[in-house]
């Protein structure tokens, strides 16, 4: 026991010890043991929960492609608007793969503890291509004329048994996007150490364990704006939802402790996705990806939230527009799929630009949304 020189110290010591002297908690070792067992099982099971959730999003398979990821914020219950939310119908796509045979919805092992030790079987809506790689949806931050917004890329990834949600989140915080216009604002050295998925409640709860040896992720870095911080968190929510193909709530553990704030953003209550209009770029090119090498004819597909659903595109070399055209997204005022085919274009390096129609002519209003990709057209 410490020797206190000050009688006040002595007195406080006595008061505190006395205050809790009669507290004798009942033995709870068994309940702790039960929970540490559950935790070990749950970690192994995460993968299956992801697969189970994916079954809900059968729209992805209906669309004829099997790519991990829908678009959060859309009506995901399989409405026709969502069916194209994946880069469907992209003929000659380098990323989409033929649909795997549809698994039975009764098959997922999420509720079957006995199969947790088994190797993950191929879930319905994930893109299990040759070589065991998958196209994972990963969101990144990019500049638009109305501020920072999220864009999505698909990254072909060798999962090696890792669940798609944590693989996608790992890439979101630490991997350089393919498109040089995009970036991640997470501090360098940020790691996703573990992802717990709990599908037992009304909402799928995802707990993301983050760590960084260099900085305290609870605090907002000095050079980061509040909007950037908020968007960085939404980047994770959108990425996880796309990978899980399910809406979810996200909470955070930083360096092993539940975190009430991450990058200075209040996370004392689980985060849900923010309104698409506030966080997602309004025009995306999903396919072809940045740096694609392809030969004409090829199909360009993506998502746009465009006025009167009109989407403009052009292929240019430097200042010279070589080809341009217009197409129509399936719906206006929501993120809806669009697609067009470039029938012929001379071989060479191009910038592919897709923009929404700007009803104000660019003189007022939020301006035009643009996404660009550098592509090479082969002979």
């Amino acid at each position, binding site marked *: 026991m410490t020797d206190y020189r000050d009688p006040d110290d002595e007195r*406080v010591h006595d008061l505190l010890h006395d205050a809790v002297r009669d507290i004798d*908690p009942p033995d709870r*070792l068994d309940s*702790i043991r039960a929970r540490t067992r559950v935790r070990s099982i749950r970690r192994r099971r995460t993968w299956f929960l992801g697969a189970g959730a994916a079954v809900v999003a059968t729209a992805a398979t209906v669309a004829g492609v099997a790519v991990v990821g829908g678009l959060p914020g859309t009506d995901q219950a399989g409405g026709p608007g969502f069916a194209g939310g994946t880069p469907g119908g992209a003929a000659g796509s380098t990323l989409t793969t033929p649909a795997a045979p549809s698994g039975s919805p009764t098959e997922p092992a999420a509720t079957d503890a006995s199969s947790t030790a088994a190797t993950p079987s191929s879930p319905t809506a994930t893109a299990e291509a040759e070589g065991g790689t998958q196209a994972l949806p990963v969101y990144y931050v990019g500049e638009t004329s109305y501020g920072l917004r999220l864009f999505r890329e698909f990254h072909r990834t060798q999962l090696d048994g890792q669940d798609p949600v944590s693989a996608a989140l790992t890439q979101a915080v630490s991997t350089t996007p393919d498109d040089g216009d995009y970036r991640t604002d997470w501090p360098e050295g940020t790691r996703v150490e573990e992802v717990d998925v709990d599908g037992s409640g009304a909402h799928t709860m995802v707990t993301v364990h983050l760590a960084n040896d260099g900085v305290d992720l609870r605090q907002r870095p000095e050079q980061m704006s509040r909007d950037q911080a908020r968007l960085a968190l939404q980047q994770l929510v959108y990425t996880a939802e796309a990978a899980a193909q399910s809406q979810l709530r996200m909470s955070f553990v930083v360096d092993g*402790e*539940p975190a009430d704030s991450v990058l200075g953003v209040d996370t004392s209550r689980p985060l849900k996705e923010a309104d698409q209009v506030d966080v997602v770029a309004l025009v995306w090119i999903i396919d072809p990806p940045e740096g694609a090498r392809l030969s004409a004819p090829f199909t360009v597909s993506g998502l746009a939230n465009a006025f009167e659903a009109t989407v403009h595109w052009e292929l240019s070399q430097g200042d010279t527009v070589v080809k341009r055209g217009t197409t129509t997204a399936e719906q206006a005022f929501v993120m809806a799929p669009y697609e067009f085919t470039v029938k012929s274009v001379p071989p060479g390096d191009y910038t592919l630009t897709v923009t929404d129609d700007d009803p104000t002519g660019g003189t007022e209003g939020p301006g035009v949304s643009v996404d660009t990709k550098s592509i090479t057209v082969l002979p």
Partner: protein
Amino acid sequence: MTDSRAWDADHAVEELYAAHYRRLVRLSVLLVHDVGTAEEVVQDAFVAMHGKWRGLRDPDRALAYLRQSVVNRSRSVLRHRGVQARYVPPSQPDHPSADEDVLAAERRTHVLEALRSLPDRQREVLALRYYLDLSEAQIAEMLGISRGAVKSHASRGVHALRSLVKDAS
């Protein structure tokens, strides 16, 4: 006692539970007042420690982790409750002949209520300093603040607690 370096996570939980569970619950009671909440906080901390054992591997570090975890979780529970307990001075007992036990129980309640009315940091520093008997350096490290800050939280906390409890007695 077996060689602690060879413990697995389950074994570490058992050993540390046996040695520290009650004390950690009491620590948490000093922070959150409520016994049920304190039990949950400490159980959560043990579950978390189990998950981290591979990185800890050492009973001293595991204990430090548990303490820190209990302090942080207690703080976050209070924040979730959203309402900072306001200190309500106890009414004068209108039965002066109340027996010793009742008086002691009232005194304990007063102290816990007074603690709850202090700012988070003061309450934490007091509990760590005077209940766990940690050094200023240990507290500074655990709370991520300077030793000077520990000293000043402690002296303000002692002062505040003394006057609150004096009011009550």
